[in-house]
């Protein structure tokens, strides 16, 4: 194993540790929230019983995951190349995809179907490095026309084309 391999080995350990910690955190949160509702007894369970138990189980599982953290190099036969593909965070893509959905919600509320469909396609298209603004524009226009014809006109979707609030 070269240096890259060593780096990967650390990150692999950490991935399981953080994953386990995440599960513990969610489990604790769920249990804490579950305890806010009445717990009841086994015979007469309150609404808090089930979520609290689930939270506790999740915490245990989280510890289990962290305890059995494996070295990725030895993890079930991952071919070496697999590590090369987990790698650089794809901020631009992620941001554009999430931003597209946010734009759909916001423009759907204060704008209507027309701007919302255009925005979701246009913004998310920019997530891909191969898309130019021209190709994104063409794609977004096509989809918007489709939205109007198929969803608004043909399927009678209850979504005003243009609206304010």
């Amino acid at each position: 194993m070269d240096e890259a391999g060593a780096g990967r080995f650390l990150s692999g350990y950490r991935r399981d540790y953080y994953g386990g910690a995440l599960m513990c955190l969610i489990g604790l949160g769920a249990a804490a929230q579950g305890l806010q509702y009445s717990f009841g007894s086994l015979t007469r369970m309150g609404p808090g019983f089930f979520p609290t138990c689930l939270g506790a189980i999740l915490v245990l599982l989280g510890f289990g995951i962290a305890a059995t953290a494996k070295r990725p190099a030895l993890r079930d036969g991952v071919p070496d190349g697999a590590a090369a593909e987990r790698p650089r965070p794809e901020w631009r893509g992620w941001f554009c995809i999430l931003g597209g959905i946010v734009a759909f919600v916001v423009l759907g509320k204060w704008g209507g179907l027309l701007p919302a469909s255009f925005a979701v396609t246009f913004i998310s298209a920019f997530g891909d490095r191969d898309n130019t603004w021209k190709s994104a524009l063409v794609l977004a226009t096509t989809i918007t026309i489709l939205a109007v014809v198929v969803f608004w006109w043909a399927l009678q979707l209850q979504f005003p084309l243009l609206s304010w609030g």
Partner: protein
Amino acid sequence: MIGHSLADLWQGFGVALEWHNLMWSFFGVLVGNLIGVLPGMGPLSAISILLPLTYTMHPVPAILMLAGIFYGSQYGGAIGAILLNLPCHPPHAVTCLDGYPMTRQGKGGTALGITMIASFFAASVGIIVMIFASPLLVSIAFKFGPAELFSIMLLGLLAGGTMSSGSALKGVSMTVIGLLIGVVGTDVNTGVMRFTFGFNELADGVELVALALGLFGVTEFLRNVNRVHAVGSGVKVRLRDMRPSLKELRQAFLPIVRGTSVGTLFGAMPGTGPTITTFIAYALEKKVSRTPQRFGNGALEGVAAPEASSHSKTQVDFIPTMSLGIPGDPVMALILGALLIQGIQPGPQLISEHADIFWGLIASFWIGNLLLVLLNVPLIQVWVKVLQVPYRFLFPAALFFIAVGVYSTNNSLFEVGEVLVFGLMGAVFVAFDFPVAPILLGYVLGPMVEENFRRAMLLSHGDLGIFVNQPISAGFIVACALLVALQAWFATRAAIRRRGGQAAAAQAQAPSPNDAPRDPKRPTLVKQR
């Protein structure tokens, strides 16, 4: 009883062949096939995108259409796996191993043809098993009380979590997350709002479509963006190429039969996903073959057996889903959720109360699979074209369909926001190597698990012993314990072996079927070979 089943089946054909039912079934198969072929889209995304369409439909055509989408997209996925080495749906990862080498040898058409024959044969066998096993299972299921239902659901959840791919602990914790998501909303017994965080929109719980599209749509896009590029392989498949020769048919026949039996056997077990089934079928073929070295280099058996097993598994999976109301895998959970939305509670009563749905569905399977064969012969060239749709156009368009689809469920933008949250959540889990599919299983079963646990405790006056005192329930609990023990044993053995053979493991090892399913969704993983 068998005669009765056959009479019902006859009636079912009547239902399935009604003009509008047939039309929707055809539509489902066609669209499912189309979406399945698209790179990065599997049955889960196909069904969840089209689920909102069914809300206004009558339950019978709705479920026929969804089933059509399901096997249509499953078959469509095989096309991508064989021609482009892109497994969009985990079960097809195995098909890639031998399917893609066949394509490179110019025998892609033959592989597709054999896949078609294998899936049709396997589906037929699965349907026959379904016809005879369902009434049998139903007669047992009527004896089920809350304790039995809880135990069998527990088994299903455990199996669904542990038998998917990757670490068993991670799978189970995802199932628990799903159960927690199922808790969100108003508690049926007391009317208390749980986990709503002040949002009135969450009082009815999390929307199934929003969860599914977030986890299988948005999460996939977040993971694949700028990483998947459609690589036109320049393959030309002609109709003529798809017809396998007599020799190839004879070569594929026994593997198909073996694959089908593996699929049928495992289909009966709740929770064993199709991925495991295909890997077992592949391993079995390799083991019985006289020339195992051909596997991985374009062995016809390596395509025929896994495809057959996944298709028969698919059909048999409908048995517990429809007759017990317990889905075997996430896709079934989605179909179950769709039935619940239609106001139909799957379970032993389904067959008596909604005989038209049950038998119509079985009959439509046959018709649908036949349609699939008929469709794919003339349309194969179209599918090859569709395969080359660049991802950069695909995902923005799909994102729009997701947004509009979720909105149309309840005309609510809040649910589009839910998609965003679940998509982000799924992406975080995926980054930590958690499988997201068990979440859906947990979500759909969650309310039922809680309800039955509560009822069982009420009946037994808080005595947990009820789960082991009743014989049927005890059987399921023993099965759960066995499952956990087996998983623990396998994990320890693997750990010991690993420690022993670190040096050997560091080298590139021969691909063994147990190794690969860690995350077969990643195309690169398979490209290594």
